[in-house]
């Protein structure tokens, strides 16, 4: 986990790149909106964990907020993960099959 000063530096660097114009392409508004939306989505999603247990949800919320702020800008990673590369989709697919096999073995 990072201290406040380094996360401040990260945020400043991120903003500087936006302002100086060599951060992203010509659709900066889309990127900034997407970034903010994604962070808030993740935080709300973490809050939804109270469906399983309430204390776990609070821990999740704090953890996810800290991690999301640490890893900003996350949108680049999101975009990369959402590429339509066959191998990337197959990766999710393999994880899914692993879950099904795990259920099988766990249930006996």
């Amino acid at each position: 986990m990072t201290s406040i000063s380094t996360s401040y530096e990260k945020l400043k660097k991120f903003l500087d790149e936006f302002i100086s114009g060599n951060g992203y392409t010509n659709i900066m508004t889309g990127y900034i909106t997407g970034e903010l939306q994604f962070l808030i989505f993740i935080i709300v999603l973490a809050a939804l964990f109270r469906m399983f247990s309430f204390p776990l949800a609070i821990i999740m919320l704090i953890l996810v907020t800290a991690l999301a702020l640490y890893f900003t800008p996350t949108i680049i990673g999101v975009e990369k993960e959402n590429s339509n590369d066959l191998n990337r989709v197959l990766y999710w697919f393999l994880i899914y099959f692993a879950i099904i096999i795990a259920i099988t073995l766990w249930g006996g």
Partner: protein
Amino acid sequence: MIEVTIQLLGFIAAALLLIIGIAGMVFLDNIIKKIIAFTLLSDGVNILLVAIGYIEGGVVPILLPGMSTVEFTTHAALVFPVGIVLTNIVIGVSTTAILVALAIMLYRRYGTLKASVVLKGERR
């Protein structure tokens, strides 16, 4: 110790074929190889379905002359999986044909059959 029956062997063959097929589809790079792996996967599903319908000591589900209805209904293997599998074989053939046709089209454009080159994600 589990008693070995032909049904259990069917399940084992199905599991092996499913694992080999999935592994081939995911890890092999050549598109034609991926298609062959798909036919193996489809075979695995077929044999799983037929093995579920198998009855130990049963008979082929065809009403032969001289067989009473009660004997037939208690001993015949399930017919419904056979219907599914027959459809699955036909669908498998058509899927394979479509996949091969698309592979030919993409080969003409890109000059290679490597999935990691042809089917790479693009930044839009």
